[in-house]
């Protein structure tokens, strides 16, 4: 498996200070794909795109991109179906969910299915490129709204049984970082505000992502579903 990744490095023709990332687009709206392709062209290599779940699964398996930009809402199961089909067999491919939906159920669902981050489609091209880079490096990307959802879902409630404190609770520092993310701070600004390095901020966010994915906390699924139903 790692051999494939190195083959990818060899394939990039123009090594900048970092090698250019190979990105794959999955979205059922052709106009949106064209827009993203045009905007991202200067930052990364868009090596392919797909408009359906089935097409995405076969082409991603063949191309093995670094990062897949994944639309949440598509026919036949949406981004969730692509993630479920790929996560086992291609763990080295990283997924960044990109959606117009801000529904908690969708956001939390995609993250728990294995996406490394979630941004909305209104994100600026530069921010999107930065998010792709961050996901490719193994870090997590939280939109302000996702940070808010996590704070809400992990809120300390007296009736919430904590089975595994390591996974089911956020540390104070993680809470602080999430609050600043929700307030619209960039990673650099968070680092400055909390007097820590950017790398430390990234570590905190990645830890939160891991908790979000691994925790069996009852509230997570119930909370996300309730947000929609009430």
């Amino acid at each position: 498996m790692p051999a494939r990744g190195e083959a990818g490095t060899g394939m990039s023709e123009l090594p900048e200070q970092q090698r250019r990332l190979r990105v794959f687009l999955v979205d059922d709206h052709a106009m949106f794909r064209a827009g993203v392709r045009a905007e991202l062209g200067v930052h990364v290599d868009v090596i392919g795109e797909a408009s359906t779940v089935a097409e995405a699964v076969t082409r991603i398996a063949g191309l093995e991109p670094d990062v897949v930009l994944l639309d949440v809402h598509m026919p036949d199961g949406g981004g969730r179906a692509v993630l479920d089909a790929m996560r086992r067999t291609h763990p080295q491919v990283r997924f960044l969910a990109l959606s117009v939906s801000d529904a908690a159920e969708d956001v939390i669902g995609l993250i728990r299915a294995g996406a490394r981050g979630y941004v909305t489609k209104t994100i600026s091209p530069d921010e999107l490129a930065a998010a792709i880079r961050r996901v490719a490096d193994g870090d997590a990307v939280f939109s302000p709204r996702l940070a808010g959802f996590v704070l809400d879902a992990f809120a300390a409630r007296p009736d919430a049984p904590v089975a595994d404190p390591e996974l089911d609770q956020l540390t104070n520092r993680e809470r602080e970082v999430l609050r600043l993310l929700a307030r619209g701070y960039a990673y650099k600004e968070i680092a400055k505000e909390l007097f820590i390095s950017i790398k430390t901020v990234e570590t905190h966010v990645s830890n939160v992502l891991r908790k979000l994915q691994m925790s069996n906390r009852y509230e997570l699924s119930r909370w996300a579903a309730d947000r929609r139903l009430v």
Partner: protein
Amino acid sequence: MASGIARHLGIPVVRVRIAFVVLLPLSGLALLLYAAFWAVLPLQARTAESPPQRRNFMSLLPFVAIGLGLLLAQTLTFGFGALGVTGLAGWLVAIIAVGAGIIWHESDPERRRQWSETLPRVPWLGAVVDESDRRAFLLRFIGGGVLVSVGIIGVVAVYSPAENFGAVINGIIFALVGLAGVAVVAGPVLWRTYNQLRAEREGRIREMERAELAAMVHDQVLHTLALIQRNATDVKAVQRLARGQERSLRNWLYKPVASPTERFAAALEQAAAEVEDTYAITVETVVVGDRETDERVGALVAAAREALVNAARHAKVQTVSLYAEVEPEQLSVFVRDRGAGFDPSTVEDHRHGVRGSIIGRMRRHGGRATIISEPGDGTEVRLFLPTSRESVTTGKDGS
């Protein structure tokens, strides 16, 4: 039912019915066949054929009467004659038949028509399983109970004059076996009927939802699209229209509709929406937790709104972040932009908005406000309002 078999086999309906009637007295064979055919035969299209179906059922009644008569005659002639069965058994059957008829006729015509539409073959089953009318259900339940009791008591009464205890036991066992047989036959049919009714109800709900969606799309989305086309040259107007429509669609799709006069989060979102509409900017709103509003919370929302307006007016950016968190001991609101910024020490005195509407207002209600800004580096307004009981009282005293 009979007509279904007739169509299936390609023979006249009457012959099938006669066959059933003749089979009826023979060990319940007809009932079993009836149940089997009921389960196996394919459903036919209902809508167009509802009226004839209804008539078919009515025309079935004489056959049922003849069948009962045959059964009665058989019983009197051969079966239980030696055990002392008299004409009483016939009366019992008559009582049950009359009772069922009364229940059928008592139910109002409108409801019966609905049953007939849902279940063209056995409208009377609708009366048994339709759960939407509790009173009618109770009536049926009591009626059925009375009939069953009368039947059992009757059977016991018929057998007991012989002073033969074994015969009484036999009679009761006979009645129980009969009841069990009815349950076995009726169970699957009832279940199917119940499912049919449920499917029909769900279909009606789906229809209503579709109508609601169509109305929303028509009233709002199409209208907005038309306005956008008319204002295509005015970038600000297009932005405002698109953003307003997006917000309303999102609310419609994902959010509970809470009243801004009652809930903190709803009030804050409404304030953000107003600022978006007025100044054609985007407010990225994130609210964690929620609570009821009161006068002080209202003041916090007003201060946050003022901060948003300031950002929209002076920051010269498209996006402003609004974050609010409800904690047990305090409410906090942060309004942040990455815009022009200013030097608080020099400008603050001239800005009535900042001094009166934000800092002063928060102080009057027992909270505090901090404004952090640097020229070129954006602005953040931080608002805090303690919610513990002591601070509530001091807040009131201070105001």
